[in-house]
């Protein structure tokens, strides 16, 4: 299997952490550190990958501003709503400027309004050039979005076609 030009299934491949730095991961249960603030959670991803504390703090602050959480930077994670927590998780995933984001059911715990907000953030990131692999079981949500859809059933890919331009326009018109 080749990811980002790197053959990751070859025997002796031990640079998985370097590969992960080029990817962002977002999950349904956010996986945020509950004893820290929003800013500390985002900065943590930078600190443990070799950025200085000052640099990490400044980048985390920028990223939270970009996703509209500038007012909640210093708020403890448990004081944030589910939607805000998911936005912090997205900020953490993208703060290292990855070329690929893997989002596993990122809207699974969110209400409809917050889901749309989160999807908006993913859409913006995609427009900025980031590839996003988004796994969800909510087919209603998929139908609203003008992106390539791959159905997986019982571990098997059942289709993998990309929408054509007309279909995309059709979906956009329906939003």
């Amino acid at each position, binding site marked *: 299997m080749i990811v980002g030009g790197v053959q990751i299934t070859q025997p002796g491949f031990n640079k*998985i*952490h*370097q*590969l*992960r*730095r*080029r*990817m962002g*991961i977002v999950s349904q249960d956010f*996986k945020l*550190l*509950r004893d820290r603030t929003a800013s500390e959670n985002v900065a*943590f*991803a930078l*600190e*443990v*990958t*070799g950025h*200085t504390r000052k640099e990490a703090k400044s980048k985390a602050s920028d990223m939270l501003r970009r996703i509209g959480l500038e007012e909640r930077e210093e708020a403890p994670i448990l004081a944030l709503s589910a939607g805000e927590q998911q936005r912090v998780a997205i900020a*953490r995933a993208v703060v*290292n400027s990855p070329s690929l984001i893997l989002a596993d059911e990122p809207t699974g715990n969110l209400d409809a309004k917050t889901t749309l907000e989160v999807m908006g953030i993913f859409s913006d990131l995609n427009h900025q050039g980031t590839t996003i692999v988004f796994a969800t079981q909510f087919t209603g949500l998929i139908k609203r979005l003008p992106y390539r859809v791959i159905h997986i059933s019982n571990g098997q890919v059942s289709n993998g076609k990309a929408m054509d331009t007309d279909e995309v326009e059709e979906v956009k018109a329906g939003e």
Partner: protein
Amino acid sequence: MTFFLRYVMRRAFRNMMGNLFPNLITIGIIAVSMLIFSTFTLLAFNLTNVLKIWEDKIEVIAYLKRGTPPSEVEPLLERTRVLEGVEIVRYISPDDAMAFMETKLGGQKDLLQGIQPALLPPSFEIQLKKDYRNPTKINEVVGHLRETAQFEDIQYGQEWVDAFSALVHILRLTQWILGGLLLIAIVFITSNTLQLTISSRREEIEVMHWVGAGPGFIRVPFYVEGIIQGLVGGGLAILFLFLLHRGLFLHVPPSVQAWLAKAPVLFLPLETIAWILLGGMVLGFFGSFVASMRVLRYK
């Protein structure tokens, strides 16, 4: 590099503060274990010191047969002086021996009243060269002396030194056997505490894996935590031992002091202290390494 060190130290201390109670218990157990080991080391060190003083004082006394003509004494002295390993030989006449005994008895020298010096045998006091003041070499010299017909008996107090040497040997052996067991216990305890720490940091470690933190960033803080536990535990052990030494060993009764040949009860030399601290750090590291191998596999 400086950044990495600062990061590692900060995280290690954060981990320790986050699990303060288990860490304090571990440090306490390491301190007690290392105190036991260090106490044996101190005892062995001081007894070895006494042994050295005794060995330095070892003299061979060769008693001449009664009635040895004075004309034979001088040639015999010359022959003894040239024996291998012999440094100084002094002739002790019966009168000298009597004077020596009177000096030793002090106020009770009246006990010697009525005893004629002629009853005491003349002897040679033989001091050996430094390299010859050990059991094997002494036996060689004594073997040569026994070949001389004019000597009736030869004494050199080696039995005492041998017995004492055996005692020191047993003490050293106990020190290492007990030490070995305690050291295994330290590795086990450190490893278990660090498994607790790692478990309590599981979420954080998972996030670190996700964001691409290298194995060094994940593992090294735990190694440092183990090293700090070992260092602090070892340091406390040395501190307690020092207080024990000040409070107890410096108040050895004079009679025991005299028996110990007035040897001062020393504290461990700096080099040994450094080895003990280093040992604590190595064990702490080893404990954390074992813990990380068991629960911190890179996913």
